[in-house]
């Protein structure tokens, strides 16, 4: 159990040793700040007041911002997860890990925890933006909480998928691009759900990563959505463990 923690802190230290982690912080904050300003401008624009008659600031600004945040995280998570195993393999450091008294499960969970810690730090920075509205207005805090939970779960599943893709290859770039491809397909699957038979449409819409996020953004806490994300994360973590276990035979 302790080794999970050691691997996670090591992962974090290495992330923060590289400029990548800091630049991603800065870029994400910058992009979201632009959107935040834009949503806020729309909301307080008197001309548009009639448009948003039935909506509060939480629905317009907070939900809008977090929806964009979901898409930006889709773009940046592959850059964080791509190093996890590819680089270890490329540099040969995987041999240090494999010859140490730690199990594959501990290794994968440690890596996952490290990546997740970084991403959650990023999420807490994102959360500060809507929270700053509290200075001037009231917010629907429960909806904000539900939406943040959605973002946390979404990010966790992104990270698990990225981790798995990284365990497949020894080239970081390949891991990043393939993670991005998979995440993107999973996201837009509900668009494909507009065509085809009833059953296919149901399946495609349900498996889409984004679909379940929308419920939580709207403040609808459905345990099925939560379980969906936990399941996606668990499946890809287990796949990574299998993959690494298997790799030793070759």
């Amino acid at each position, binding site marked *: 159990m302790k080794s999970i923690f050691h691997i996670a802190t090591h992962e974090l230290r290495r992330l923060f040793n590289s400029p990548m982690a800091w630049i991603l912080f800065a870029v994400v904050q910058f992009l979201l700040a632009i959107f935040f300003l834009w949503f806020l401008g729309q909301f307080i624009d008197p001309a548009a007041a009639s448009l948003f008659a039935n909506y509060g600031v939480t629905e317009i600004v907070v939900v809008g911002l977090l929806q964009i945040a979901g898409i930006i995280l889709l773009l940046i998570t592959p850059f964080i997860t791509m190093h996890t195993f590819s680089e270890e393999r490329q540099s040969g450091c995987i041999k240090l890990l494999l010859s140490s*008294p730690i199990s594959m499960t501990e290794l994968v969970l440690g890596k996952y925890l490290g990546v997740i810690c970084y991403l959650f730090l990023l999420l807490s920075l994102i959360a500060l933006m809507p929270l700053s509205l509290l200075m001037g207005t009231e917010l629907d805090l429960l909806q904000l909480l539900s939406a943040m939970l959605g973002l946390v779960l979404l990010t966790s599943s992104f990270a698990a998928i990225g981790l798995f893709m990284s365990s497949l290859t020894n080239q970081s770039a390949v891991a990043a691009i393939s993670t991005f491809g998979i995440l993107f397909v999973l996201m837009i699957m509900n668009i494909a759900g507009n065509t085809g038979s009833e059953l296919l449409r149901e399946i495609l819409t349900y498996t889409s990563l984004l679909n379940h996020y929308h419920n939580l953004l709207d403040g609808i806490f459905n345990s099925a959505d939560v379980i969906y994300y936990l399941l996606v994360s668990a499946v890809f973590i287990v796949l990574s463990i299998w993959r690494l276990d298997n790799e030793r035979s070759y």
Partner: protein
Amino acid sequence: MNKEILISVDHISHYYGNHCAVDDVSFSVHRGEVLGFLGPNGAGKSTTMQMICGVLSASAGQITVAGHDMFESPKAAKKNLGFLPEHPPLYQDLNVDEYLRYAARLRGIIKAEIKKAVETSKQRCGLSDTGKRLIKNLSKGFQQRIGIAQAIIHSPAVLILDEPTSGLDPNQILEIRELISELGNDHSVILSTHILPEVQSVCDRVLIIHQGKLVLDESLDKLQQDDHIRPIKIALRQPPPPEVLGEIEGITSIEQIGNHHFKIYCQSDIETINRITKMSVESEWELYEMIPERDSLEETFVQLTRGESQSLSDEKPDENPDEAGEDSE
């Protein structure tokens, strides 16, 4: 030797796809023994070492480290194991202290002892002054030493070093050899190398692996005692006709390679050599050079691994009986 067996390798094989890299290899190493692992490139040395360390799994067979089965209870086995792979597994963006602390934690050293363990292993590998430097800024030799430091940080019972002296300067090589001999007193060490004198200076036993098969498992002492027929190059300033030299007892054949130089094939015992020098003095041949062409280990190595790469050995004396294949099926 009655000492406890620390590594036991039992009929292991490893396949890369259809290619058999290691084929039914068995041996064991006792406590306090330094084992030299030799073989041409691609013979399966690294694969075997990685299997012993649990980095690769064996397609067949059993490996026991310090009494723990590597595949049944890998954690217990790996606790007793230090491994330096061919390329030291270093994180370039960490400094030496950070890296060694991480290695110590991974090896399960308790928190209170980490600092001491890091200091001790740094000192043993001559890294005391480099603690705060980034690994990527250090030279290859230093990186190699960090690799060794991480392998010995938890003073494991079993130490597996894949080419530990590659990239080091001659002084460092001597230091590392001393370190290995010192570690060999109460640990078991397996080291692979291409440098034969290195094996002679630190190892107690030699394994030679060729095309995945173990072709020799012999103690170094025994190997060096063997009476092989071996070429010696001599140079005489006033040489007699070759026939006269050929009459000296113990010399089997002779070959003139220059006005003053001869190659002599003889039993490599002291008496024959004494006879040659004595004759030279008595007959005033003025011997001024006497160089053994190959030593026993080199010769054994070449002989056992010659199969595929004929060009390695351009000149060979007569075949001699050997214990090749004793341990391989």
